[in-house]
């Protein structure tokens, strides 16, 4: 499967509906268009993404996003070589809407259909944006995911560790909610933390006392809740400085944990480069700490630009092309999978019950 390929990518696994067109030629890959329609306002009243509300929005937006992506690329469906769609892991209602729309489009046009693991999309993005060569270490930190992966090929991932409970982005959202800050919590908490004292509240650094690269953020969130409740009981509310200090303390704890675990992951994997992806990679304090760790170790640090770091469909189109070149394709019986670990060899992190590992 050599030569130039142009793929449509479709993404709908969380709260962004996205479509993109990517051309991959021997000289390199190029994003011809990337349309992302977010749903922040729809979920804002609920303090978190509501799966049914997300699914409802995706079902009525995906085809519009596809049309917009084709128009932006200046291409018709006849210019495509294939259709790549996120088939999991994620919120199943949204994933299903994307998968079914992709199936309809593929059946109608006769184009090949390629189901893509959303995490593979993130994990392969540094190749698209920074031309990284295999192998490299990937730290994926978003609202729904947190893991360290050694990426050795388009379908060759080894998970070194990950969160055993909440993802850091989720913890940022919950802390924002606890403190009466707007969603999404990441930017709101980061902005508050700028004027806060990270040392005022002693917050835990979960799992640093244990070897390995696994992380935990649920207890940290609970510690913030306890500190908040202590202040509420003592003074009947929060002063803005309290809030800023709690945000700074929380952000410092997340940063310390991610930096130390990254150090360990680099020791384990011995690769020449680290790439971070996911919305949390946009946090400048966390990013600076990771850059310092890489500098200490003499490892190249890369982070795709934010629009390709957070959920998008260009990464799905690109990962779809990579899979297609390795003869990966799917039939009309392609399943949408809420749980789909990238690395099925390593022991499951979470959700190891009868439904299997989540990610």
């Amino acid at each position, binding site marked *: 499967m050599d030569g130039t390929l142009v793929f449509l990518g479709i993404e709908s696994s969380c709260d962004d509906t996205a479509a993109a067109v990517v051309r991959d030629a021997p000289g390199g890959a190029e994003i011809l268009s990337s349309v992302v329609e977010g749903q922040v306002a729809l979920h804002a009243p*609920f303090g978190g993404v509501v799966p049914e*509300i997300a*699914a409802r929005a995706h*079902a009525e937006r*995906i*085809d519009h996003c596809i*049309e917009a992506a084709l128009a932006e690329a200046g291409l018709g469906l006849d210019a495509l070589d294939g259709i790549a769609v996120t088939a999991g892991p994620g919120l199943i209602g949204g994933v299903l809407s994307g998968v079914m729309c992709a*199936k309809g489009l*593929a059946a109608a046009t006769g184009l090949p259909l390629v189901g893509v693991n959303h995490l593979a999309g993130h994990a392969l993005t540094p190749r698209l944006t920074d031309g990284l060569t295999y192998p490299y270490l990937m730290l994926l930190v978003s609202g729904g995911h947190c893991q360290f992966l050694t990426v050795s090929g388009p379908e060759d991932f080894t998970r070194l560790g990950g969160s055993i409970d909440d993802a850091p982005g989720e913890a940022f959202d919950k802390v924002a909610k606890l403190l009466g800050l707007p969603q999404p919590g990441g930017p709101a908490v980061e902005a508050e933390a700028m004027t806060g004292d990270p040392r005022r509240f002693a917050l835990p650094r979960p799992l640093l006392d244990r070897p390995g690269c696994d992380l935990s953020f649920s207890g940290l969130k609970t510690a913030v809740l306890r500190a908040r409740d202590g202040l509420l009981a003592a003074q009947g509310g929060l002063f803005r400085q309290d809030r800023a200090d709690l945000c700074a303390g929380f952000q410092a704890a997340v940063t310390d944990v991610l930096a130390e675990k990254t150090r360990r992951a680099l020791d384990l994997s011995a690769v020449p480069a680290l790439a971070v992806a996911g919305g949390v990679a946009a946090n400048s304090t966390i990013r600076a700490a990771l850059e310092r760790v890489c500098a200490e170790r003499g490892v190249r640090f890369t982070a795709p630009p934010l629009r390709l770091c957070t959920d998008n469909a260009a990464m799905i189109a690109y990962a779809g092309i990579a899979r297609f070149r390795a003869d990966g394709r799917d039939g009309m019986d392609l399943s949408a999978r809420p749980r789909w670990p990238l690395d099925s060899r390593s022991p499951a992190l979470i959700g190891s019950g009868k439904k299997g590992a989540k990610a």
Partner: protein
Amino acid sequence: MRPDTILAFDTSAAHCAAALLSGEQIVAARLEPMEKGQAERLMLLLQDLLAGAGLGWGDLTALAVGTGPGNFTGIRISVAAARGLALGLGIPALGVTRLEALAHGLPRPLLVAEDARRGAIYVQGFGQEPRKPCLLTVDEAATLPPGAVTGSGAALLNRKALDPMPLAEAIAHVAAARLGDSPGADLPRPAPFYLRGADAAPPSDPPPVILDTVT
């Protein structure tokens, strides 16, 4: 001129249903009961149905899809597929509600009552014109005036139901009539017809009072 060929399908309940309408004639139809697996089965069933009739996707003039009310996920499976097919084929896709489909071909006035579970019924009255559909409790629906009824909700109201046309066939006919009424019109895309909210509650934990907020 070749007659309009409309492919209709529905996965709004525990089934995959499809029918192919050519002109005024249903030329093929399938109903496969299934509790789950509609997303994996639907497209293959549609391909089989077309192939059995000696047709391909390119022979269709329009698509018709059941938009519910019914199983939320099931509704989206078909609506999303219909939108993808319509975009790829460059033909219109029409959404037909389950209530409109049930009423098709039955004498008026008519009450369509579908079991909505959790002690509720989806109802819509059809006189000269269709009335506004709504979600009622079984007790509320029991006070509706007597008359002809169809749908799975009739039993909950202790009323005898008229037999409706098979769902996918009725969806095809309703869509054909709508296409005939407005040839060449820019028809709205099919959208799920939930008739029931998303069941999301705002957070119960109120945000903390900020003591020094500038007002």
